[in-house]
């Protein structure tokens, strides 16, 4: 029997508002504990919430971007449970009437095909604070700076069938919210985190298996690993004749395993009811239309434009358009260099490699888009070869400077003087008589491949500076004249 995995995801995206969802306190990350929590966030007796409209605007932006129904009337509910970092003893959320209803996004699968993933709903809610266990002996500290930060909880349909699909979906949502500018997407700081609902069933069966929910995973890699591990665990149990307990699990990245947090029996009864301190949010079509019309270009549209305008491959266009800072960078490089394909290759190749190795985001790249564009210009006008360009890029990355300055300072300018090239070619032919004989002896149609050896020798002798096109022409002519 073959197993099938069923995955549904709940993504918590922290909305990039300046102030909290129900108070005027700042949402900035990293301040001293409890310095960004006002009387409302501390849930002092008598305090009341006031809804921050920019959170509404951001939620509606997301809803229109995924082609979802927008709730004309949405209502805040109280989700009641006790926890030390939940100051009011309830979380204000939306259960019955969420702001965003059914929508969808399309993901690309490994085989190049597209799959549509349903979004069940997305609702507004407030974040809780944080418990601090370090620095306290036998005690726990509470930091309420994060309490009241607006979250958009995006709930998917159980439409994903593998960890890879799940990651593709999460990346898609991540790309959407960052492109919309409604979430900074910083997973390490918890601005974007994910709960994974996972179950398995025999292929062909309609009924879902019992599922587990693995909470608060905050990297794409961990999502994939946690799901894979959880699927394996569930299949092992079922194949041993056991059954899956519906429960909440935690992913331990150090041990790369999930472990039980609480079972359904221990689960809270949240006693949801409409929050009497907040009026229902009522919006009209005009409000929604205005937001729809002011949406920035979204990744899918941008990918299509890149294919159309720059003749990029679907893959290249997809990678570059997924992350707004990267697509902005790319477009500047194209503008300067005038060559889209070359620009795409360099952004996704040399630049991405350096960013990865140095764990740096493209938005703070030490080589700017203008610098890279300038470098590509020098490749195009044959001032330097592609290989030399890589050396120039290294220098640019570590020391700065424009391509022209570096080429000048290091004397990397390509040799295009035909006399000089002919001289090197003659020297290489003279020094490699054995290979010349083999060339002459070879069938004419095999000679083309053999020329690479001579090319390499010339480039080596010229320190990479000889113009490869010219070398190729001269070399072929001279060798062929010997045949």
């Amino acid at each position, binding site marked *: 029997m073959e197993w099938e995995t069923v995955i549904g995801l709940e993504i918590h995206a922290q909305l990039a508002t300046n102030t909290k969802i129900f108070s005027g306190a700042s949402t900035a990350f990293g301040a001293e504990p409890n310095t960004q929590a006002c009387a409302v966030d501390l849930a002092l007796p*008598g305090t009341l919430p006031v809804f921050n409209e920019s959170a509404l605007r951001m939620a509606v932006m997301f809803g229109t971007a995924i082609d979802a129904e927008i709730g004309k009337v949405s209502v805040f509910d109280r989700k009641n449970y006790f926890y*030390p970092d939940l*100051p009011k*003893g309830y979380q204000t959320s939306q259960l019955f009437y969420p702001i965003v209803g059914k929508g969808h996004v399309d993901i690309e699968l490994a085989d190049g095909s597209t799959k549509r993933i349903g979004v069940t709903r997305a609702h507004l809610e407030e974040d809780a604070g944080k418990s601090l266990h370090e620095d306290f002996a036998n005690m726990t500290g509470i930091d309420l700076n994060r309490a009241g930060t607006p979250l958009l909880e995006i709930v998917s349909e159980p439409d994903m069938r593998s960890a890879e699909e799940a990651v593709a979906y999460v990346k898609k949502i991540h790309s959407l919210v960052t492109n919309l500018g409604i979430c900074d997407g910083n997973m390490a700081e918890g601005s974007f985190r994910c709960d994974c609902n996972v179950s398995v069933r025999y292929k062909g069966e309609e009924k879902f298996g019992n599922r587990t929910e693995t909470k608060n995973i905050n990297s794409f890699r961990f999502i994939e690993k946690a799901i894979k591990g959880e699927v394996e665990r569930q299949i092992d149990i079922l194949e041993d004749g056991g059954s899956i307990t519906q429960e909440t699990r935690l992913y331990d990245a150090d041990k790369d395993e999930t472990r039980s947090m609480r079972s359904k029996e221990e689960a809270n009864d949240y*006693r949801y009811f409409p929050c009497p301190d907040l009026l229902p949010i009522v919006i009209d079509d005009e409000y929604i239309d205005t937001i729809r019309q002011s949406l920035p270009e979204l990744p899918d549209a941008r990918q299509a434009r890149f294919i159309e305008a720059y003749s990029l491959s679907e893959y290249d266009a997809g990678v570059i358009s997924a992350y707004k800072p990267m697509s902005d960078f790319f477009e500047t490089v194209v503008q300067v260099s005038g060559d889209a394909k070359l620009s795409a290759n360099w952004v996704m190749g040399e630049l991405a490699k350096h960013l990865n190795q140095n764990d740096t985001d493209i938005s703070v790249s030490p080589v700017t888009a203008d610098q890279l564009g300038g470098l590509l210009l020098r490749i195009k006008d044959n001032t330097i070869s592609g290989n030399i360009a890589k050396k120039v890029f290294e220098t640019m990355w570590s020391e700065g400077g424009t391509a022209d300055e570096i080429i000048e300072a290091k004397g990397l300018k390509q040799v295009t003087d035909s006399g000089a090239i002919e001289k090197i070619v003659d020297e290489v032919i003279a020094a490699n008589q054995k290979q010349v004989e083999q060339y002459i002896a070879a069938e004419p149609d095999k000679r083309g491949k053999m020329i690479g050896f001579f090319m390499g020798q010339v480039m080596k002798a010229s320190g990479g500076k000889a113009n490869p096109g010219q070398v190729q022409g001269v070399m072929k002519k001279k060798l062929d004249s010997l045949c």
Partner: protein
Amino acid sequence: MLNKTLAELAKGLDQGEFSSVELTQAYLDRINKEDSRYNSFITVTDELALRQAADADAMRAAGQATAMTGLPLAHKDIFCTQGVRTSAGSKMLDNFVSPYDATIIRKFNAAGTVSLGKTNMDEFAMGSSNESSFYGACKNPWDLDRVPGGSSGGSAAAIAAGLTPAATGTDTGGSIRQPAAFCNLTGLKPTYGRVSRYGMIAYASSLDQGGPMALTAEDAAMMMNVMAGLDPLDSTSTDKAVPDYTASLDQPLSGLKIGLPKEFFAEQLNPEIAATVQAAIKEYEALGATVKEVSLPNTALSVPAYYIIAPSEASSNLSRFDGVRYGYRCEEPKDLEDMYKRTRGEGFGTEVKRRIMVGTYALSEGFYDAYYKKAQQIRRLIQQDFVRVLSEVDVIMGPTTPTTAFKLGEKTSDPVEMYMEDIFTLSLNLAGLPGMSIPCGFSNGLPVGLQIIGNYFAEEKLLNVAHKFQQATDWHTRKPEGI
């Protein structure tokens, strides 16, 4: 200078008969000498009061006095007052000193009033007799063996005993009107949303409403001029324009249409109360009003609906009292659960626990539809009854309470009998309508209250209707023996 109304005291201050400091000192002396008999204050703020009085005298000297500058008041201990203990009558908040002022406190301070102290109340405003206060029961100045009513019993007793000329109260199910009736005072529960709830410790958010308690309708109007209005910190407060409540007090009553709901005069009503109220209605007819019998058919459902909705909201509102951030915390908790259980077990009194339990049950999974949702449906029916009747008449009149002030301890063992105390008052809270109680006579030497109910935002009309009655009668001028 004591035993005067706010309006009379304001005149005295204006004409320089006495200073605010002299007036304040006289009240403080009386409180300190006599309040041990009534237990109407939880906290007396001598120093603060004299400082505010001196400021008020300075304001007056500088020509900056408002209508209420220099007038002493007392505030129910449910309103947060900066730098002063705010206990809500509970052991839970016995050590709580508020770091901020409730909106109405801020407004009274800005108007230059003097705060004598914080008055006794049923714990978290849950009660109809003031017997559930952690600080002990308060006594009715008309008969020290009887209750002053609740939950604003401290405010009522303090005014009736001449310890303050007026006070603030809150009314969730009748807590301004019932003690006003028991203590021969004028009390107004405004329309829900007319007076800000910010800084008023929440009992049941959709029902709670602050308002004035005073000797006359004129005084209540003066207080409303300060208290009413939109508060950006309370999303449920309304931006409807605030009239000058003292300006229209003298409008003639000719043509006034009074509705008498037959359900308020059913056979169970104490005949002496019925007769007293009927006599007051006759007085209104003499003043030019016409009377019509009307029906509020769902009146009998208001008590059960109220005692689902109010405890449900209370169970959630009181979750924040968990021993984590402020208020009472049990000694040496073993772990988190132990801290929650013992903190709340030791910090809350019996009536509060009872309502938390009822509310938790009503909201729990599987019972929500049968209780909470059903109660909300009944609430709508009750509201529709009122809207229909108030389209036919200007005001509705009836008794405020089914009995006069009862004996201390008489109803504490039977919560349901205690809940029936509010049968005529709490339907207004469910509907969000304004209502008043004014003195209209005596039964066995104890005051009887006439309840006047108006349409949404008809406070002006109610005060006018009450004021005209008080000009034609002298019930409101009667004082307990020895005051």
